[in-house]
């Protein structure tokens, strides 16, 4: 069984609890063990980088160092955590001065980071470590007839990590197809959900949410699938505010891709945390 150091991140403790459980459980069925990182700390989100990037790198490096101690690659289910961990890892590997400086700080917690691990987004684990063939094989309850809008958001693809295609990625669509569902043609799938603005620039943020919801409706999607807790909360929980602000009537369920995958793998709704939605997904999941 392949094993990874799993860094859930702050959101998955409560707000995105169902993403947490569904990730761990679906991974297990697909032969991947996600071992939660011991005593992990917040990675600083985007906010920390406004103040002091060196400190932000240090926070991230503590998590990387704990994973390295276990000899495991780091996996993050949150796109912002993933981006931070990915680039901190990269910069520490590129810049010996930075590595030395951060390691001096890590000494306080008896840690050291030597840049010997890689960082993955959890979707990368399903798509590339497990693979579509394996997933297709293990799907017992294909989500036939379900039209899913695969919402990538930003930081899972941007900034570009390894020269991969970032304006027309297809891996989410392929994953949705592997679950037996029908990926919607969803042009706004790469557009920012405004999560980092919802607290600070409300009107702009709600407008950005509206654009994505409208596009999901226009693409005749039954549900939006996300791969990031911030996207999920933003797109789902703020629907009433959007409706109020713009006189719309959105009731679009927004579900983690791991929950959909879990259903397709035959897992129970309860185990996947389905039912914790503010916008009920019951109507569409009744049949699965």
């Amino acid at each position, binding site marked *: 069984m392949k094993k990874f150091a799993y860094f859930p991140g702050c959101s998955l403790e409560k707000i995105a609890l169902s993403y947490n459980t569904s990730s761990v459980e679906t991974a297990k069925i697909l032969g991947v063990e996600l071992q939660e990182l011991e005593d992990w700390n917040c990675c600083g989100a985007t906010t920390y980088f406004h103040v002091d990037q060196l400190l932000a790198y240090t926070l991230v490096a503590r998590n990387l160092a704990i994973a390295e101690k276990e000899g495991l690659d780091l996996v993050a289910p949150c796109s912002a955590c993933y981006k931070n961990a990915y680039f901190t890892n990269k910069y520490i590997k590129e810049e010996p001065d930075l590595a030395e400086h951060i390691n001096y700080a890590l000494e306080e917690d008896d840690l050291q980071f030597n840049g010997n691990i890689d960082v993955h987004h959890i979707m990368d684990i399903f798509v590339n470590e497990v693979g579509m063939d394996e997933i297709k094989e293990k799907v017992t309850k294909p989500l036939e007839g379900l039209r899913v809008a695969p919402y990538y958001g930003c930081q899972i693809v941007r900034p570009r990590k390894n020269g991969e295609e970032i304006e*027309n990625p297809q891996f989410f669509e392929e994953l949705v197809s592997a679950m037996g569902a029908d990926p919607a043609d969803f042009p706004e799938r790469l557009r920012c959900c405004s999560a980092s603005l919802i607290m600070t620039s409300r009107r702009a943020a709600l407008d950005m949410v509206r654009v994505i919801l409208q596009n999901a409706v226009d693409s005749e999607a039954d549900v939006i699938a996300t791969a990031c807790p911030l996207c999920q909360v933003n797109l789902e929980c703020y629907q009433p505010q959007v409706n109020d602000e713009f006189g719309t009537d959105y009731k679009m369920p927004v579900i983690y891709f791991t929950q959909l995958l879990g259903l397709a793998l035959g897992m129970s709704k309860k185990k996947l945390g389905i039912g914790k939605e503010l916008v009920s997904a019951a109507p569409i999941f009744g049949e699965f």
Partner: protein
Amino acid sequence: MSEKNYPEGGERVGVYICHCGTNIAKVVDVEDVATWAGEQPNVAVSREYKFMCSSLGQDLIEEDIKEKGLTKIVVASCSPHMHEKTFRTACERGGLNPFMFEMANIREHDSWTTDDEVAATLKAKALTNAAIERVVHHQPLEQLPVEINPNTLVVGGGIAGISAALELADGGHHVYLVEREPSIGGHMAQLDKTFPTLDCSACILTPKMVDVDQHPNITLLTWSAVEKVDGYLGNFTINVRKKARYVNEEHCTGCGICIEKCPFKVVDDIFEAGLGERKVIYRPFPQAVPKYPVIDKENCAYFLRGKCKACQIFCPTEPNSIDFEQEDEILTFDVGNIILATGFDLFDVKQIPQYGYGRLANVFTSLEFERMVNAAGPTDGKIVLRDMESSPKSVAIVHCVGSRDENYHSYCSKVCCMYSLKFAHLVHERIPDADVYNCYIDMRTPGKGYEEFYNRLLEEETHFIRGKVAEVTDAARTPEEEGKLIVQVEDTLIGRQRRVPVDMVILSPAMEAKPDSKEVSQLFKMGCDFDGFFVERHPKLDPVATMTEGVYIAGACQGPKDVPDSVAQGAATAARVAGLINLGTVMMEPVRATISQDDCSGCKICNNMCPYNAIIFHEDRKVSEVITALCQGCGTCVAACPSGVISGAHFTNDQLFSQIEGILWDVRPEKVPA
């Protein structure tokens, strides 16, 4: 300047350090270098001078040779590329053999590379010293005359190649014109109108094509490719593969009945840019030259399944012109010069997925639009959407697709602004009530009549938006956007993001080098740059020659350019070649290898390594010998000879080792300057 007496009979070297205005002197302490050089062994005279290449500078050398009895000359200045010939000639006027000269490059190799005056002066001394130590060993050499074969190879039958071929042929010289496609004409044949005069492309191009076809001095080889190039300036041997057309050119009258009767159609990705179809036996376009059709073997029912033969059955000629048994031919011929005019490709717009090409039906490439507006094209000149019926009420033209972009091509593709303006005009002309948007970064219209054309479009009320388009989407946000393509762009002159709903989007992609340009450059042993364009000998003063003698370049294979520029370059290459042909012979560098006939062990290693096949083996004496006329002085055999009995004139061991010793003077303890 420094001057000293030197023993009678010994070498007397004159050293000249050039300031090159401030190019060298601003970083290198030229006085110091000259004084120092004057103190070196064998140096009789050492001077510095503002411009050694000036008449007065050359006079210095000439007079010193005569008055001071100099035997060898060193000039430390710019690249030998620029002025080696100048100074050799000055030596000759002074009465020395021109090869008793050596040049040290203290500009490109020194002063232009650093601001560090100390380091630059030190390096200037090292380079000058290397030249001094080398020149002592120079031997008098005589240049070798080489005859120029008066025939010329032109590769590429676009407008640049056609122009070059016709100029030469009209001047009475024979030309082999080789074209990869079934017809000459190139991209220009695909266009309807040409900017800025809007004259009909076919009307001005086809007379030229006909001239090529009928010219007694042109051997036209279409559906052909150069496979092998041997030799050197004046004496190239060319192998061309003439692909099987499956149509006998001697019998075919070009009546076209076979094309009419062929029951199979395929999408024409090349000439019609995927917008139209052609038969499996086809001529790319009605005015094609030559007139003979060609069978597309990959799609031909006979070749695929052994059935059909409709073309053969209906062919009215006697004997029948369709020949399914035809095979590729390899033709070999000799030429004296080569002109490459291999043209360009368009940037693949799918590399920028946010512009939606391929996903959004009504996003077109410029070439598709060119075919669409062409009266002889798939829509008979009607501007229509992808459904091939409805006409757009609004059109956005996107400039700089893949150009001026570090992610793709950093260069400006030069012609896109003008053809994008032309497109706008054609839309206005054919759909008078349509709104046309041109989204550009900077409007670049430097050319005769080009700015006036821009002004005309302003008067025609084209909407100009200064901003690089961010994306094209079909995700509507307002009722006005429903069912439209939305062009999202910042109007940078207003400073606001705009979403412009249109029916049709035309992308204007960059011109880029052909995908095989690197292989082609290797085939002809010349250079191509990072972008794949062929490299000219000098960007300003020798734009159509290459670093390889006898190989010239014209048209868009050298960089993006429009029709008039391509025509001018084609003519320019012809003038260069004609000049050489008229000369009859040229003098070649006497840099040649010689094999000591007494010491050769006859191992034959050199025979196989020589890239010019210039070494023969005498079976009777069991020794190898270099044929001087064929040797190009590359030095491969010199390095390869296990007995060390091959020497290269002007690159002898003595000369090279002395030069190395000379450049390392400051690490030899006994020579460290005070």
